[in-house]
């Protein structure tokens, strides 16, 4: 296993540049729709057959997250972006593929082996109303991860650490004795961020952390996340559907559609020149303040169900540029001159600018 990561390194090169913090290879995640074994049995033509159906949430995703970047994953509901986040965190077991953290494979580790990695990677969830335990005070909520990951620390040290984290995210010390329900959405998300930061992680997965918040509060939380990144030298995997947030926050963007990656590009490149037809449609759909009339590219139909995936390119049924090849062959990610990667036959053939 280590041989592979060593072959990547060239002598004298900056190791941090070469080994990505997190690497996903050929990730596949299916969810069974058919229940347990007995429920899968069907009578067909006089014979008893086993019938299984799956939701294909992720279908072969390769991704490398570099140290210090804020990688944003965007896409519409059902594109698999949250599943990627959860699989990376080990909350879901991948159906195939591997996940490497700092060079070591973590997707097949036992819970015990995973513990040191869990300290280094933390998660912030979408709904701050559901992610805080209603029966714990804020102090208990913030102490819990510290006590779990540093069993040797005495109470004073734990309390000092909690005080330090509270101060760093702008939580007043007297919040400690109160419960989650006493706070507003923005305040709760602040607490959730404090909880993630309490164990000094280096990598944070944030799954739509501001989607449930109001506009004026979104800015507060986004500022906090950016401050935390500078102070603690964090790497983010940021899941969102809001392209305006991506443009502001992300260093690189991954666009997903039906469990596949359409395009990976540095943020500025993606926004100045989206290449994949789906990215172009997504961009044009953002309601902007400037123009009076929406000039968006209309897509045919809607996202197909991930139960029966389309053949070839998953987007071909809605793509205005699709031809016969698109319906037959799955496009691979290819490098473009601007340093981005696009999975599209049309771009590869030069049909789409």
């Amino acid at each position, binding site marked *: 296993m280590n041989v592979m990561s060593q072959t990547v390194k060239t002598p004298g090169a900056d190791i941090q540049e070469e080994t990505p913090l997190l690497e996903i290879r050929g990730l596949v995640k299916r969810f069974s729709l058919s229940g347990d074994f007995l429920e899968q049995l069907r009578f067909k033509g006089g014979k008893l057959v086993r019938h299984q159906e799956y939701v294909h949430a992720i279908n072969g995703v390769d991704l490398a997250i570099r140290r210090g970047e804020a990688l944003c994953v965007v896409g519409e509901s059902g594109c698999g972006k949250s599943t990627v986040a959860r699989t990376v965190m080990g909350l879901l077991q991948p159906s195939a593929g591997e996940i490497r953290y700092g060079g070591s494979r973590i997707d097949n580790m036992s819970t015990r082996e995973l513990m040191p990695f869990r300290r280094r990677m933390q998660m912030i969830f979408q709904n701050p109303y559901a992610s805080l335990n209603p029966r714990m005070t804020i102090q208990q909520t913030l102490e819990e991860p510290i006590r779990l990951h540093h069993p040797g620390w005495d109470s004073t040290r734990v309390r000092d650490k909690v005080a330090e984290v509270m101060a760093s995210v702008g939580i007043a010390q007297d919040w400690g004795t109160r419960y989650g329900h006493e706070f507003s959405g923005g305040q709760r998300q602040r607490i959730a961020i404090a909880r993630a930061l309490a164990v000094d992680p280096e990598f944070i997965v944030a799954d739509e952390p501001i989607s449930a918040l109001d506009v004026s509060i979104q800015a507060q939380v986004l500022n906090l996340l950016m401050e935390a990144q500078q102070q603690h030298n964090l790497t983010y995997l940021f899941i969102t559907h809001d392209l305006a947030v991506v443009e502001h926050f992300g260093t690189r963007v991954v666009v997903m559609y039906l469990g596949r990656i359409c395009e990976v590009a540095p943020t500025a490149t993606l926004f100045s020149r989206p290449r994949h037809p789906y990215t172009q449609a997504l961009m044009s759909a953002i309601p902007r*303040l400037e123009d009076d009339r929406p000039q968006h590219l209309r897509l045919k139909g809607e996202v197909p169900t991930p139960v029966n995936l389309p053949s070839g390119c998953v987007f071909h049924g809605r793509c205005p540029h699709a031809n016969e090849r698109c319906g037959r062959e799955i496009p691979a990610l290819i490098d473009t001159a601007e340093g981005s990667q696009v999975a599209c036959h049309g771009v590869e053939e030069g049909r789409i600018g």
Partner: protein
Amino acid sequence: MALLDVNHLDVRFGMRRGELQALRDVSFSLDRGERLGIVGESGAGKSVAAFSLLNLIGKPGYIAGGTIRFDGQELTSMSDRELRHIRGHRVSMIFQDPMMTLNPVLSVGEQMVECLKAHRRISKREARAIALHKLEQVQIPSPEARLDQYPHELSGGMRQRVIIAIALLLDPDIIIADEPTTALDVTIQAEIMALLLELCEKHNVALILITHDLGVVSQVTQRMLVMYAGRVIEQGPTREIINDPQHPYTQGLMNALPQMATPGSRLNQIPGSMPSLDNLPSGCAFHPRCGFVQRDDGSHRRACEDNIPGFVTSGNCQVACHMVAEMLERDRIPAEETSR
């Protein structure tokens, strides 16, 4: 005369702890075919404002004062029976969650026929023909087949199209849409908004669009209201407010948008959060979060803490802010002096 005229509307909720004033002194008007946006954060009262127009606020809420005149009739004093002729018929609503709005045990066709038959004396066949026509108007693929499908068989975008078709069934004068696209994805949202806009224009239907998305408001509406803690704090032509917001809260909202800052820089946040209605600050409800309570020369504007600001006219907009009032006053006096 305006199609809809709302004056000094007060809505209260009688709670055990005392009365909560959900809407205070809300006034606006809507012309035939006009599109009005109501913007605000959660808890600002925008949904209550829309619901109270048709007296749809449930107990313990009630309209405590003010008038709502629709096409010459006073709605606040109408009986439920009379109101029913207006609801769904002349004023229809589109709600946020398309799954909650449709009846899961009735097919799409049955729901549409039911609605038509409740308001018109027509045969089932005629009603079905109208329903089919409306489904065609909202550009649903294979509309004939949809009539016999159940809501769960349709995707989110498709359901919202059905709901728009139902809203249009009886050719209403006004459609009230409460966050119609919030539950949908961006690409679908863009299509639904474009459809709604197109249909409203084509049939000369007025639209009241409730949303928290300034982008949507700026693209769809002609005039907008900004609400904060149960009050309207700014209203006027959408373009003017978007291009040059006067109220510090509206300015704050606009500046907090990520598209307003250079990528990677700190966003201009509004400190704190909206006060709850049972604990409103004195004076202007926004003053604890407002950066303009202090004047430029460092002196303190007492009025912000003591008095609820009234509306002043700035350009074509109405703004409820002491600071703006003071600035206008200051601009006016020198102008008069020089003209003398």
